[in-house]
């Protein structure tokens, strides 16, 4: 088991295997996401209370959900960086942090635009919205800290500690709507119960969540490859890949 774990940490091995998966991730992601969005926008019935403004949910929930799961993945990678000093874990954190920042921003933006017609306000300092804003700042902080430290190894460790410290925010985001009074409603999808909407609404939502997940997978692969190439340019395999086009 440990042998496989250490093989997983080899940048060359990752480069080869991810190149094979990437076209499938991209194609599957675009198909699922577009299917979910078109279904949600044009075919799903409108909500009895909010009318058509609820159609924002088909991008609001996927971006918010994946923005949080990226952070959980980054925190797991941070543990690997601190304990095993595995290069690939640090490459992952560095590669996906900007994607997490973009998705968190999208979740906040779509939430604000959705809040205006339904709640009557763009923004309110309730626990859910504030903790999501903290997630945005955490992503920004991770990116800034990584750029501020020149030495690759010290940057990796400092970033890993920051990511781990910030992970306490994730359960706060998730349970904020249950622990405290908030304007934001509780989650629509729960792991243990059936979703609180009919199938013709939750199936397109599930499709767009899965689609965005696959697109995130593709983005993670391509951005990690970029980072690996620039870090390993002194090695023979990168030289061969660049000059001959194969690993």
């Amino acid at each position: 088991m440990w042998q496989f774990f250490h093989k997983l940490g080899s940048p060359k091995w990752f480069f080869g295997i991810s190149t094979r998966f990437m076209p499938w991730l991209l194609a599957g992601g675009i198909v699922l996401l577009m299917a979910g969005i078109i279904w949600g926008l044009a075919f799903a019935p409108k909500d009895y209370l909010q009318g058509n403004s609820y159609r924002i949910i088909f991008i609001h929930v996927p971006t918010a959900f994946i923005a949080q799961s990226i952070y959980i993945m980054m925190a797991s990678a941070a543990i690997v960086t601190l304990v095993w000093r595995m290069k690939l874990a640090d490459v992952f954190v560095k590669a996906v942090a900007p994607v997490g920042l973009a998705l968190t921003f999208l979740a906040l933006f779509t939430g604000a635009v959705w809040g205006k017609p339904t709640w009557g306000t763009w923004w309110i300092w309730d626990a859910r919205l504030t903790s999501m804003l903290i997630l945005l700042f955490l992503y920004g902080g991770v990116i800034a800290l990584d750029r501020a430290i020149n030495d690759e190894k010290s940057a990796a460790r400092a970033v890993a500690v920051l990511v781990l410290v910030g992970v306490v925010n994730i359960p706060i985001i998730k349970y904020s709507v249950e622990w405290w009074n908030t304007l934001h409603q509780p989650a629509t999808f729960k792991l243990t119960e059936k979703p609180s909407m009919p199938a013709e609404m939750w199936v397109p939502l599930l499709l767009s969540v899965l689609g965005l997940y696959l697109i995130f997978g593709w983005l993670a692969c391509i951005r990690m490859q970029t980072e690996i190439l620039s870090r390993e340019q002194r090695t023979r395999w990168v030289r061969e890949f660049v000059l001959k086009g194969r690993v």
Partner: protein
Amino acid sequence: MHPIRKKRLTIVLFLLAGLSVAVALTTYALRQNINLFYDPTQISAGEAPVDVRIRAGGMVKEGSVIRDPDSLKVEFLVTDYSASVPVEYVGILPDLFAEGQGIVAMGRLNTEGRFVADQVLAKHDENYMPPEVAGALEKASKAEGKSVTGSVKPASY
């Protein structure tokens, strides 16, 4: 596992555990400030300060909305099904405002226990359904003599 790695893993886990406890205690101590609004039970029990800008939240009680015919003034009762507080407001209400619907009002509690709001926001729950389904549910629950929103989710307040 290598002993050095084991040691590092223990340190990391201790760091996480300590941090979680610290954050849990802090948020527990600040819970009254993190709560966005006071509910009617808290207000009628005197927990909410008088003449300070606060928020009150709850359901608009069925049949309690009185609209002034000459102005935008509205009066209604906000309830959490165990206590209710009278609210008055002058202004445009959000589209989702209706009897039996959740709201959060910003304003001041006066000495007579009336809440004078200067902003009313609508709060909705996590249940989404097509209008036809909602209509059918309403009909079914009317037959039983209950209101649909009350029967779907009274527990959100």
